[in-house]
């Protein structure tokens, strides 16, 4: 009798480690104040502590999600939540095309699907500010934006073609222990639709005051940060049902104080 109980406890303990393995796949990002490219009234923004996935979500992980949540399979997903490109690089509902790698970031995923994935894991998508805050770190410092080589490196990554076919974890991790924020794929953010630039430069100069209420408050703080401009421009041009080749995602978990 006793041995039976202890056996169950052992099984439980073994399972426990796999259950909490998830936590180890995340890295702690200590919050703080920072000056984003587009902030509230162009002032510093406060970011709370959070944990972030150290890798973007991979194809393998996404397959797992689809098996548990069939309504997100490519044959089942409804058009309100994803456009026709959704999982276009998949052979069938549960198999990726032979040209794709299991360890590559999952792309061709809509915002709705990415949001659902994170919620299913008890997490959520990072906000623009959280993402940018974590991504301004390089291998040694938390805010590397002042280093010219930081920008140059990111831009050279942006120029490299077909990076979505690479596998995760090839670039060195940043100071938080997070990989691939730059150099692999663009990533969805929870409030990407808070970027109020139209993507048309003439309009942005004139502040399209008819389309956006309060657009005069929107000013870029660092005109040299081209890489950030590109990210914000992409966010500004996205719609939530778009699924794109170069657009993946990862999740975060805020830490409540």
């Amino acid at each position, binding site marked *: 009798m006793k041995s039976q109980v202890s056996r169950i406890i052992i099984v439980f303990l073994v399972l426990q480690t796999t259950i909490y393995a998830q936590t180890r796949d995340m890295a702690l990002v200590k919050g703080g104040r920072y000056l984003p490219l587009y902030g509230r009234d162009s002032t510093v923004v406060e970011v709370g502590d959070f944990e972030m996935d150290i890798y973007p979500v991979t194809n393998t992980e996404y397959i797992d999600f689809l098996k548990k*949540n069939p309504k997100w399979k490519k044959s089942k997903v409804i058009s*309100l939540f994803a456009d026709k490109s959704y999982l276009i690089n998949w052979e069938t509902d549960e198999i990726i095309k032979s040209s794709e790698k299991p360890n590559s970031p999952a792309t061709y995923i809509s915002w709705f699907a990415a949001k659902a994935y994170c919620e299913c894991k008890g997490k959520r998508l990072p906000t623009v500010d959280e993402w940018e805050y974590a991504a301004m770190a390089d291998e040694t410092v938390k805010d590397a934006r002042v280093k010219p080589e930081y920008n140059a490196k990111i831009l050279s990554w942006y120029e490299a073609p077909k990076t979505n076919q690479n596998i995760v974890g090839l670039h060195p991790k940043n100071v938080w222990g997070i990989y691939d924020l730059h150099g692999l794929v663009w990533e969805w953010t929870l409030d990407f*639709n808070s970027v109020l630039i139209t993507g048309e430069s003439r309009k942005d100069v004139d502040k399209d005051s008819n389309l956006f209420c309060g657009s005069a408050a929107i000013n870029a703080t660092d005109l040299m940060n081209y890489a950030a401009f590109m990210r914000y421009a992409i966010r500004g041009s996205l719609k939530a049902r778009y699924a794109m080749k170069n657009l993946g995602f990862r999740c975060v978990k805020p830490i409540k104080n």
Partner: protein
Amino acid sequence: MRYLKLVLSVFIITITIISCNSKAPKKLETYQCPMQCEGDKIYSEITSCPICKMDMKLIKNTSIKNNDNISQASIFNLTSKWHTEEGNEIQLKNLRGKTLVVVMIYTSCKAACPRLVADMRNIEAQIPTESLKKLNFVLITIDPKTDTPERLKAFALENYMDDEQWTFLQGTESSVREFANVLAMKYKQISPIDFSHSNIISVFNPEGELVHQQEGLGVNNKETVSEILKLVK
């Protein structure tokens, strides 16, 4: 033996709580996890049977049923819950059957929102009275923290928008963000009391499918009105 049972049940409960899959039905019952539950009219109305609600298979059926009844592009697929200015809790699908004219605003807004509201009233004024009962003008707040049902009601009274055809909705931060994304509407909180936002009026047919969007402030609403009139004929 009793000890064994206790250990076993603790074990099972822990697993149930942790596994993602089993989380869904629990969520469905309370506030509907966007994972499993594609809000379906028929099934949520037969929710008198609590056993059915907990059944995972039933969720699959729901989504199939759903496809038959509500089209894929319909906003009634969203399962989030909203509070009206009268304090009722509804889902978007409760608005089914009427043409919807939707705008997102916040009541403390001093710049564009009064003009957006004026645009809405301007559109309303061009609809024949007998057609108004087939219409629902929906104003959704992007500031759900400040704009409580009480505040929305006061705003409605203040602006003479308290008739049957006006509906004000308060959601949650997440459901508002999701709905804005359905409308491709952008907004950002720029100070504790102010938001910047795109000025868009959207028209949905009675099945919740987007048929027309008018962008900008004080623009000529002829096209919007003619789309609405087509729908309420």
